[in-house]
């Protein structure tokens, strides 16, 4: 879990160095269940980073929410089960911003968007141990032929397709279930997500989803502001400054530590809200 804290610092550098547009991926966020605000930031459920199931909506939600507040941006984060709903709100309803990763936008669409990196994300390849008791070697492309790979929508998949793997898309939890059923051979996901989802939905399978030695590319989790929104450009600039300040003064790291720290308190923040009596 310390890795996440490192990525927060990396994000600081990214936020300062990267130009206003970059490639990204995306889910959408909104915790606005009780008051429909004027400005909306949409994200896909991405437990435990962005989810209404944990305290404070998960670490990325909390970072974004505090940054919005410090930037004096009146906006609320709403989460959705599907990425294409996030895209809908961004591209059809000109929402202020969306959050996510593995975004795929056309060149034309990217012109209207301002990408601000929130955090680096480390992904790993996972397989189901009972299906591969001796491990699964993904280091050589030759081993991929005929394998079934579970990908997130928007994920770069050409390498696997070229190597002869059949690529299937789905939500992370669906893919984990398909791994268990034998419908997939391997998937790529952040270890924190896999750990949280297995604990949440199939605790009896703990320890059976194994990460391989093969490295997946590091990803970046973005907030993407919309130039078509009347406040989009100004909001992006204010948000960037607020986020940089949060990284400099240690707020982001503190949030990360709060959620992912090794102490009992850290674990508490990732507990499902429903488990608090």
């Amino acid at each position, binding site marked *: 879990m310390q890795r996440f804290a490192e990525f927060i610092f990396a994000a600081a550098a990214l936020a300062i160095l990267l130009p206003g547009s970059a490639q990204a991926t995306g889910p959408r966020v909104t915790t606005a*269940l*009780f008051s429909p605000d004027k400005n909306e930031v949409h994200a896909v459920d991405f437990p435990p980073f962005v989810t209404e199931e944990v305290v404070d909506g998960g670490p990325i939600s909390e970072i974004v929410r505090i940054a919005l507040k410090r930037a004096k941006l009146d906006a609320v984060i709403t989460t959705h*089960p*599907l990425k*294409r709903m996030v895209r809908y709100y961004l591209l059809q309803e000109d929402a202020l911003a969306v959050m996510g990763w593995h975004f795929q936008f056309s060149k034309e669409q990217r012109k209207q968007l301002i990408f601000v990196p929130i955090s680096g994300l480390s992904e790993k390849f996972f397989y189901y141990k009972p299906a591969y008791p001796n491990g699964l070697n993904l280091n050589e492309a030759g081993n991929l032929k005929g394998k079934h790979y579970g990908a997130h929508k928007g994920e770069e998949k050409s390498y696997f397709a070229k190597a002869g793997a059949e690529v299937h898309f789905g*939500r992370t939890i669906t893919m984990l279930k398909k791994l268990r059923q034998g419908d997939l051979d391997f998937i790529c996901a952040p270890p924190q997500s896999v750990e949280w989802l297995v604990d949440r*939905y199939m605790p009896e399978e703990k320890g059976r989803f194994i990460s391989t030695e093969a490295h997946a590319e590091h990803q970046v989790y973005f907030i993407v502001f919309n130039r078509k929104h009347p406040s989009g450009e100004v909001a992006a600039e204010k948000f960037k400054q607020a986020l940089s300040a949060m990284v400099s003064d240690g707020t982001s790291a503190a949030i990360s530590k709060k959620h992912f720290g090794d102490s009992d308190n850290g674990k508490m923040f990732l507990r499902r809200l429903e488990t608090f009596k």
Partner: protein
Amino acid sequence: MTPASAADYKTVKPEKVGLSSERLKNMDRLIDGYVERKQIAGAVVMVARKGKVAYFKASGLADVGKPMQRDTIFRIVSMTKSITSTAIMMLYEQGKLLLSDPVSKYIPEFRNQKVLVPLPEGSAFPYKLVPVKREVQIRDLLAHTSGILYLFLNDVYSNPGRKMVVDLYKEAGITDGFCRPDEEIGDMVKRLARLPLYAQPGEVWDYGLNSDVLGYLVEVVSGMKFDAFVERNIFNPLKMHDSHFYIPKEKLPRLAAVWKSDWHGDLQRADEKPIMAGDLCLNPSDAEALSGKYLAGGANVLSTVYDYFRFAQMLLNGGQLDGVRLLSRKTVELMTATNHIGAHEAEFLHSKGWKFGLGFAIQQDREHPVDSGDVGTFEWAGIYSTRFSVDPKEEKITIFMSQTNPFGHHFELWDKVLVQSASAIAD
């Protein structure tokens, strides 16, 4: 009306309750004909009147080499819905909720819902999402006017908007619950609530996953698991000892098999694999699970004809049976009122003239090709071919249970069963 008792398994001579034994032989001939022609493997049929069971017969096979018995256990699937509605109405009577309450009061994910409106072909985006004019209320869930869909009806009533909503359901891992997913009902409901509705609440009658949402609502409002609530408050008081969400191991031998029929004599016992047809997924093997997480208020229950008779008799008695009161007479009257869905027709099992109350369809007039009973008769059915019908005016209950797929073939048989039941009245 004196509350009827149905405490035992005894049957009475049909004449004692104003039915004709001679005419009920037509029911024997009807069912035997379907079994002999191998259209169905077997069935259990009951006709009860004035609280007494006058006709109760098992025919054919429950499974390969196993005769159908009167206590055979069936997957009653959508006949679960009336039980779920009863659970909600009990909470309503306890003052825990109002039917006019927005569902979001209890399940916050229902706030700020949108309705999907398809855009003309060639538009830059296939649809737009518009805010609901009013929130989905509990009554919408009971009466199927919420705008929430079933996936499988995409094959029956296909149109672009329905297909788009169903595609979103599928992508989000929403199922009809007939192939039980490996999750808790609340997980499904919370995702469903954040997907677009098919229509504005109150502006459509569309049979959908509403009772499944109600099952979760029972959990939220009562603080109990849905199955535990139903067992404690409905199954146990009504002595429905063979009704379960998950079957006890010792009762597995009594579970009927599901049969696939082409309705022309090709009858095969369904194997272990799910039955897939378009957007419909049925998994008969789910009923063999001894435990599970998914508690579907629209589909989960396994029961017998006799148990369901006790439940139906409770409703016919105005909410009580054998001295145990579950609901008040006024609440049952509310559940069986015909004006909950306004000008819409509940055209799914029936033709026009049938309305939907708070858990079942109700006959509003008698202008139908099939005369299955009087105005006020209420009914519903299950997708493996089960059906119940309660005629309050004649104090008559008819229950048919088989386990045959596909569903669509059975309308004719069900209608004929109801005709035989009605035409046996001899007083």
